């Protein structure tokens, strides 16, 4: 790791001033950034530690819940309000990383974490995301963990987060602070598809700070489920993950939310399938139909064809659990 400067501004103003300088990076929990710096993938000249900012709160707001950007993944997962109002989020967080890492990882950092594509991590290999123009190592290489939706010629990586899959499903909003002011972004608009600029993971500007997320109230708490399929029982990234939330009344699905992880460069919201579910009886047959719909447009690479089968099976499974049919 190269030598860098380290500052710990006492307030938001200080942070915003600092990150406006070239070569700076915010550090929150450090669990992704320090890892990438050790690998030589990221090499900021200056770290701006934002832990002095009062962004750790989780608090009820008129139409939902506000979660500060510095709230720890473990803190959010255990929070009583989160558990009762948005158990899906709690489940997704608990499915991620390890207990220790969740004690370090923050909400903002989790959103900003970078792909785990092995070519991205290995500076001796080509990767358009790390070094634009060097080519995508994964496309013709080892791509078992890679995308089946929304990829581009330039990059086929997936976003590794679990938390983000739940937040995408829950219609969350991202709160962003820039030097010129505040803006709100729909969670599903926060992350990007790779397109021709895979080096950009999301739509946050370099000089902006995530201050929190807001989740609107909903009727899904009774019927939601986060399913994570992975190579070992815990402490592994998802092959496929599904966030499923249903509003079921008298056996009929009034409303539905579905998002998938491990399949695209961003949390993959399945709106067509959601539409299909609406008004249908909450049965496995319905879920299977929705799963098939959700898979339209999926395309696999050399090593990840299994996802074409695992993904719909996981959608069905998650919906079945959400509906309480297991």
């Amino acid at each position, binding site marked *: 790791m190269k*030598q860098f400067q380290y500052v710990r501004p006492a307030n938001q103003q*200080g942070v915003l001033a*600092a990150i406006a300088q070239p070569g700076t990076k915010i550090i929150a929990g450090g669990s992704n950034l320090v890892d990438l710096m050790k690998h030589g993938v990221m090499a900021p000249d200056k770290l701006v*530690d934002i832990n002095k900012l009062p962004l750790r709160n989780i608090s009820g707001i008129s139409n939902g819940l506000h979660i500060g950007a510095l709230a720890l993944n473990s803190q959010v997962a255990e929070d009583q309000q989160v558990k009762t109002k948005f158990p899906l989020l709690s489940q997704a967080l608990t499915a991620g990383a390890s207990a220790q890492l969740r004690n*370090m990882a923050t909400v903002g950092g989790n959103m900003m974490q970078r792909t785990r594509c092995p070519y991205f991590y290995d500076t001796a290999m080509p990767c358009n995301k790390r070094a634009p123009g060097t080519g995508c190592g994964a496309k013709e290489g080892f791509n078992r963990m890679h995308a089946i939706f929304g990829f581009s010629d330039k990059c086929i990586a997936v976003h590794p987060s679990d938390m983000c899959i739940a937040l995408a499903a829950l219609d969350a909003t991202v709160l962003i602070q820039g030097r010129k002011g505040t803006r709100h972004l729909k969670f599903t608009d926060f992350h990007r598809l790779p397109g021709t600029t895979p080096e950009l993971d999301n739509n946050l500007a370099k000089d902006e700070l995530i201050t929190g997320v807001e989740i609107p109230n909903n009727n899904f708490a009774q019927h939601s489920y986060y399913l994570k399929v992975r190579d070992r029982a*815990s402490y592994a990234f998802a092959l496929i993950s599904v966030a499923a939330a249903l509003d079921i009344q008298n056996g009929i699905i009034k409303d539905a939310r579905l998002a998938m992880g491990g399949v695209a460069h961003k949390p993959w919201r399945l709106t067509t399938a959601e539409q299909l579910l609406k008004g249908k009886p909450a049965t496995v047959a319905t879920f299977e139909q929705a799963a098939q719909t959700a898979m339209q447009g999926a395309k696999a690479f050399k090593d990840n064809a299994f996802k074409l089968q695992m993904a719909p099976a996981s959608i069905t499974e998650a919906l079945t659990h959400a509906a309480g049919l297991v």
Partner: protein
Amino acid sequence: MEDQNKGFEAESNLQPKDNPRRDFLKKSSLLTAVALTPAVAVKAAENHLDEKVAAVFEKLSLDVTVNGVAHKLSVEPRVTLLDLLREQLHLTGTKKGCDYGQCGACTVHVDGHRVNSCLTLAMMVDGKKVITIEGLANGDELHPMQEAFIKHDGFQCGYCTPGQIMSAVACIREGHANSEAEIREYMSGNICRCGAYPNIVNAIQEVKNGGQKV
């Protein structure tokens, strides 16, 4: 540069440590430049100033309490808590198994919470309390978890053990040791290649069920 520093540098007290050569260096215009531009540092190196210059400008002061002992240190910001403990404080009980947050061997408690010290920059525990495996026992009297690990043979080579024990204590304190399945899930951040898992789970259950204060 000056302008940029004004907003926060002073507030956060991140000043270079005292050093005999500081006065000389202060006068020198290298002061700010060196810390920012590697090229200048290289030039300094050619003039045989490298060691001293680097030592002064790259280190920041750090106050941290480790196992009840307050330390006033001066560290490069790139030093991780793990390397600080092992290489500078010679507290080698905390282990390096991967250096990337992937094994849990480096687990310590920071202000009572378990974290991976390999991904924690030392500067980020400024003002905090760190407890390592060396600080768990009460003098000669082992912590109940240490006793239970011995009794249930919760280890073989012992290399993952400090991390397992720090994690196990936290697991109970967090309230995540209510069933075998829950213990297994919440201990999964600690890999044991020797395969002592079932014995570790037994040890944790015994401590949990024994109701001792952990």
